[in-house]
């Protein structure tokens, strides 16, 4: 369900079950860089399904490998991550795609929704 941007990639293959956590991570990093624990608490605050530490890092590693996020210098033992230019571009085009999907869905559901 990742859509055209996050869903597949010729170099590293499909994100598979990590497509959704990856999207949540990108959203979480959109306002400011965060380290692992901060991402996790943030995501668990705004998303419906919580993500565990293993899933979080599996998704982080994939995003890093694709160059959508990058690690910053370590602070204490924690290492914050931030969006790269490619990452924020991928996120905004993915969100645009989702927005289009929302519009189509609402239009087809009819005017009852308002």
């Amino acid at each position, binding site marked *: 369900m990742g859509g055209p941007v996050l869903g597949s990639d010729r170099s590293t293959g499909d994100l598979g079950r990590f497509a959704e956590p990856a999207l949540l991570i990108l959203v979480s990093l959109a306002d400011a860089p965060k380290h*692992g*624990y901060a991402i*996790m608490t943030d995501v668990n605050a705004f998303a419906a399904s919580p993500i565990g530490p293993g899933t979080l890092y*599996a998704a982080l590693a994939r995003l*890093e490998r694709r160059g959508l996020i990058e690690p910053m210098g370590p602070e204490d*033992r*924690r*290492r914050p991550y931030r969006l790269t230019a490619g990452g924020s571009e991928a996120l905004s085009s993915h969100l645009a795609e989702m927005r289009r999907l929302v519009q189509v869905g609402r239009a087809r559901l009819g005017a009852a929704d308002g």
Partner: protein
Amino acid sequence: MPAPVAAVGLVMRAYPQDWRERYGAEMAALLSDREPSWRDLLDLVRGGVDARLHRLVKPPTQLVAAMPRREVVMAVPLPRPYGVVETQPIGELSRRAFMRRMLGVGAGILALEFIGGTLAFLWPQLRAGLGAKFAVGTLADILAEQPSFANGWPYAVGAARSFLINVPAARELALGHDASIPNPTADQMLALYRKCPHLGCQVPGLCDELKRFTCRCHGSTYNILGEKLKEGPAQRGMDRFAVQVNDNGVVVIDTSQYTFGNLDRQDVKFLSFVDAAPYERKCQ
């Protein structure tokens, strides 16, 4: 319920070496902030398996690039001082690791063989042998092969180890009458299991003299419907399989449906059928 610290350490070993070098410290920091639950541990195990299946960690290219050029030039091979132990080149398997891995592989194969053998042993054989349904043939087929089936003589079905009995005709035969009943219904047929309920000998065919079955091993005697008579050590009559006639008129013996023979109560009055010969006689 938080998981113990030792379990967390164990679970981190699910991740490959390069992953732990790259992410280990920050993951440990995260887990110390969070008090991981058992669910988190399961998630980590899955993550570890995933990390082993996919090479996700980037090689540290920045470090090589950051290294001053002079040091790279200086890195010419020097003669090794005496006594230096050769270290294993990265990516190659040592003899010890190889042996250990092969031991693991061998144990795995052995376990698989054991499991496979156990399953094969327990697997039911429902297509052949007892427990299956045996199509005997239509009544016309049976009569073509053995016309005396219409007169009450048992028809031996080798595969089902049974005698097929035409009950109304068999009664007439055992009473000494001459009858021909070529069209018994499914209710009017019996399949008698030929294994003697005493000690399992195969019960031979009907004797001409008395129209009874007598086991040759210990002399257990049964009437033509397989009911135990006076003679012999068996404790019950011959066992019975279900008989059906399917839509095409084929007689089927279902050996998965099984009824015990009558209890031997040593008295003629408990039998459902009394033939012409005296109760205590057996075939010679």
